[in-house]
C-alpha cells in the first residue's frame, strides 16, 4: 500500500460523501453515492481487500446506484436539502 | 432417557433444526405461494408447530442434562467456526419465541386472509424468516452471527410492519433508520471487541476479558454495543420509532413483533453483558448499575405518563411496552441475583402479556373496526369471554396476583430493595398504579357505556343509567369472536395465571441456572 494514494483516496471519499448529502438534487446525490462507493472500492483494493472491493464495485457502485435511480424515477428529484 | 438415545442424530442436531426449520418452511411457502394461494398458510402453521415441539424438546434436554448444549456449525469448534450455545436462558427464550409465533399465527388467520390476501406466500415466508431470525439471535454464541440474524429479523419485521395503515410506510421507514443505526452501532461494537481480542466467539472473548479489563477499546465497545441495543429496544430518549411503528401495523404483525422484538433485544443485552463482557466487567469493573437504572426509571415514568395521554388502544399498549422495557433493563442492571431473575422472568411474562393484549386488540378490531378506546363500549356484555381474558391480561400488566405480572414485579422490587435502588422501586409502583388507571379506564368504558352498533348509528345515546339498563336488556345478545381467535386467546390468558403460579418453579429450575454464580 502506498500512503499518498491512500490519503488521496480517503480525501476523495470524504469529499464525495459530503457531496452526496449536500447536493440539492436527488439524482445527483445518488450518482455521488455511486462515485463514493466506487472510490471506496478503490480504497479497498489499495488495502488488499480484493473480495470486498469486488463486492463493493458490483453492489455498491453498481446495483445500489441503479436501485436509487429507479426509486427516484418513481418519486421525485426535488429536495430542499 | 431412551427417548433421547433412540434417535440421537436428530436430537443432537436440534439446535440447528430449531432455526433452520422455519427457514426451510419459508422457502417452501415462498415456492408454493406462486402455485396456490392457500398452500403457504398450513405449511407455515405446521412448521411453526414443529419448531415449537423441537424447542420444547430442547428445553427438556437442557433441563435434564443441566449443561449447555454446544452445536458446531459446519463442524468447526468454537473460536474458528460458529457455534450455537443452548443453555437454560436461551432455551427458555427459544421456547418463548416459538410458542408466541405459533399462537399468534393460529389466532390471526382471518387477519392474514384480509390484509395479505394476494401475497400469502411472501407474507408467510417473511413471518417464518422473522421467527428464524429471532431464534438464531437467541441461540447463537457468535457475536457477528448475531448481527446477521438481527438483520434478518429486522428486515422481515420492516416488511411485516410496513403493510398496515396508510401511515405505516412512513413510521416503518423511521423504524428502519433507527433500527439500522442500532444494528450498525452493534456491529461497530463487535469491531472494537475484535480489535481488542481478535475473536468473535462470545465464550472465547469472555475468557480473554480478564486480561484486558482496563482496555479503553473494550470500554468503548461496551458503550457502543449498549447504545445500539438500547436504540433497538426503545429505551426512553431513543424510543421515538416504536409507538408509530407498532400501532399502525396489521394485527398479525403487531402481535408477533410487539411481544418479541424488544424482549429478544433485552435478552441479547443480557447475553452480551453476561456471556461476552462477563458480569465481572459489567457490574464490578464498570459499575454501570446506577446510570442504567436511572435510564430505566426515566423510561418507566415516561412510558407510563405517555400511555396515560393516549386515546387509542394500540398506541396505549405501545407506550406500556416502552415502560416495561424499563422494568427489564432496570431489573437486570440492579446487578443482584433477585433483580436479574426478575428481569429474565419478566421477559417471559411480559411477552405473554403483550401477546394477550395484542390478541385482544385483534379481536376488538375484528368486532368494531376501530382502534379508539371509545369503540370498546359495552364490550363486557357483548363479549364476556374475550373481556374475561382481556381482564386477566390487564391485571397481569397491573401486577395483581395470581397473574404472572405480579411475580416478576415482586422479584424486580425485591431486587431494587436489596440493591438499595429505592427510586426504581418507587417507579415500579408508580407505573403499576398508572397501569391500573389505564386499564380501569377501559374497563369503565366497556362496562358502563352501552354497546354502540357501528354499522348504523341510530341515535345519540346519552349515558343515563335508565337508558343504560334499557339498552342492556334488549342488546344482551352475546356475540363472541370466532373460535379460531377466541380459543388461542383464552389459552394465553389462562397461561398468564399458570405462569404466575409456577413462577417459583421457573425461577428455581431454569433461571437459577441461567445466571452465572458470580452474581450474588
Amino acid at each position, binding site marked *: *500500500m502506498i500512503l499518498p494514494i*491512500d*490519503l488521496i483516496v*480517503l480525501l476523495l*471519499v*470524504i469529499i464525495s*460523501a*459530503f457531496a452526496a*448529502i449536500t447536493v440539492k438534487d*436527488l439524482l445527483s*446525490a*445518488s450518482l455521488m*453515492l455511486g462515485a*463514493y*462507493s466506487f472510490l*471506496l472500492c478503490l*480504497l*479497498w483494493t489499495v*488495502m*488488499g*481487500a*480484493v473480495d*470486498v472491493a469486488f*463486492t*463493493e464495485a458490483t*453492489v*455498491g457502485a453498481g*446495483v*445500489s446506484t441503479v*436501485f*436509487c435511480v429507479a*426509486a427516484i424515477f*418513481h*418519486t*421525485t428529484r*426535488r*429536495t*430542499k*436539502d | 432417557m431412551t427417548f433421547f438415545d433412540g434417535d440421537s442424530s436428530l436430537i443432537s442436531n436440534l439446535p440447528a433444526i430449531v432455526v433452520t426449520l422455519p427457514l426451510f418452511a419459508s422457502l417452501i411457502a415462498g415456492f408454493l405461494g406462486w402455485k396456490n394461494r392457500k398452500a403457504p398458510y398450513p405449511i407455515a402453521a405446521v412448521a411453526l408447530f414443529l419448531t415449537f415441539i423441537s424447542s420444547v424438546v430442547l428445553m427438556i434436554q437442557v433441563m435434564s442434562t443441566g449443561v449447555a448444549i454446544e452445536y458446531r456449525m459446519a463442524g468447526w469448534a468454537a473460536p474458528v467456526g460458529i457455534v450455537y450455545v443452548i443453555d437454560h436462558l436461551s432455551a427458555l427464550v427459544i421456547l418463548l419465541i416459538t410458542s408466541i409465533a405459533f399462537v399468534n399465527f393460529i389466532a390471526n388467520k382471518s387477519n392474514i386472509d384480509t390484509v395479505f390476501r394476494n401475497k400469502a406466500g411472501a407474507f408467510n415466508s417473511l413471518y417464518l424468516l422473522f421467527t428464524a431470525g429471532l431464534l438464531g439471535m437467541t441461540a447463537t454464541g457468535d457475536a*457477528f452471527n448475531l*448481527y*446477521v440474524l438481527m*438483520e434478518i429479523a429486522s*428486515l422481515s419485521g*420492516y*416488511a411485516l410492519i410496513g403493510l398496515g395503515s*396508510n*401511515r405505516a*410506510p*412512513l413510521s416503518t*421507514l423511521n423504524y*428502519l*433508520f433507527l433500527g439500522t*443505526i442500532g444494528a*450498525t452501532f452493534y*456491529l*461497530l461494537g463487535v*469491531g472494537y471487541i*475484535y480489535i481488542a481480542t481478535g475473536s*468473535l466467539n462470545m465464550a472465547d472473548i469472555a475468557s480473554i476479558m480478564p486480561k484486558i479489563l482496563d482496555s479503553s477499546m473494550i470500554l468503548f465497545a461496551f458503550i457502543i454495543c449498549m447504545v445500539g441495543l438500547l436504540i433497538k429496544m426503545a429505551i426512553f430518549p431513543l424510543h421515538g420509532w416504536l409507538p408509530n411503528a407498532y400501532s399502525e401495523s396489521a394485527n398479525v404483525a403487531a402481535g408477533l413483533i410487539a411481544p418479541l422484538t424488544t424482549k429478544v433485544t433485552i435478552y441479547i443485552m443480557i447475553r452480551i453483558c453476561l456471556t461476552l463482557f462477563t458480569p465481572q466487567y459489567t457490574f464490578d469493573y464498570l459499575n454501570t448499575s446506577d446510570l442504567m437504572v436511572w435510564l430505566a426509571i426515566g423510561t418507566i415514568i415516561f412510558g407510563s405518563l405517555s400511555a396515560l395521554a393516549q386515546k387509542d388502544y394500540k398506541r396505549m399498549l405501545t407506550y406500556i411496552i416502552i415502560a416495561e422495557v424499563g422494568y427489564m433493563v432496570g431489573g437486570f442492571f440492579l446487578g443482584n441475583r433477585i433483580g436479574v431473575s426478575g428481569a429474565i422472568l419478566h421477559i417471559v411474562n411480559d411477552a405473554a402479556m403483550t401477546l394477550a393484549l395484542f390478541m385482544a386488540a385483534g379481536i376488538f378490531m375484528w368486532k368494531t373496526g376501530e382502534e379508539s378506546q371509545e369503540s370498546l363500549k359495552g364490550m363486557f356484555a357483548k363479549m364476556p369471554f374475550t373481556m374475561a381474558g382481556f381482564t386477566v391480561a390487564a391485571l397481569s400488566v397491573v401486577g395483581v396476583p395470581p397473574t404472572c405480572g405480579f411475580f416478576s414485579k415482586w422479584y424486580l422490587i425485591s431486587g431494587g430493595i436489596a440493591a438499595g435502588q429505592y427510586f426504581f422501586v418507587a417507579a415500579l409502583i408508580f407505573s403499576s398504579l398508572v397501569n391500573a388507571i389505564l386499564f380501569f379506564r377501559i374497563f369503565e368504558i366497556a362496562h358502563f357505556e352501552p354497546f354502540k352498533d357501528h354499522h348504523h348509528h341510530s341515535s345519540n345515546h346519552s349515558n343515563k343509567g335508565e337508558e343504560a339498563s334499557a339498552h342492556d336488556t334488549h342488546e344482551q345478545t352475546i356475540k363472541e369472536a370466532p373460535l379460531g381467535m377466541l380459543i388461542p386467546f383464552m389459552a394465553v390468558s389462562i397461561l398468564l395465571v399458570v405462569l404466575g403460579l409456577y413462577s417459583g418453579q421457573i425461577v428455581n429450575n431454569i433461571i437459577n441456572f441461567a445466571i452465572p454464580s458470580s452474581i450474588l
Partner: protein
Amino acid sequence: MDIVSLIAAKANYWTYVILLMVGLYAMVAKNNLVKKIVGMVIFQTAVILFYVSIGYKKGGTLPIIMHGHDHGHGVESVIKAADYINPLPHVLMLTAIVVGVATLGVALALAIKVYQEYGTLEEDEIRKQIELKG
C-alpha cells in the same frame, strides 16, 4: 511519533469516524427521506471501512495463498500468517455489504410507498399533511 507516521497510523480511523458522522448527521438532521437513505448507506459503509482497516497488515499481501493449487495441501510449512492480510474482517464485511444493499432495497421500497401516499419526500411536508388529516 512524528506527524507523518501518526497520520499513517490513524488516517483510516479518522476517516471512518468522519464518514460515520456524515452518515449519522444525514440520518438525524436531513429532511428528505432519500437523503436520509443516502446517509444510511454512508453510515453503513463507514463501518466497513473500519473493519477493513482492522484487517490490514503491513507487509502482508492479498489473502489468497500463493501457488496453493500447485501443491494441494502439502505446503503448510511454507505458509506464514504474517505474510497475508487478515481475511476474517473481509469475510464479515462481505456479509455487511449484502446486508447494506438489502436494507437499501427495503428502505427505497418504503420511500416509494411514502411518496405514493403523500406525494412528497420531505418530512416536514408529510407531517403537515398528517396534521391536516387529523
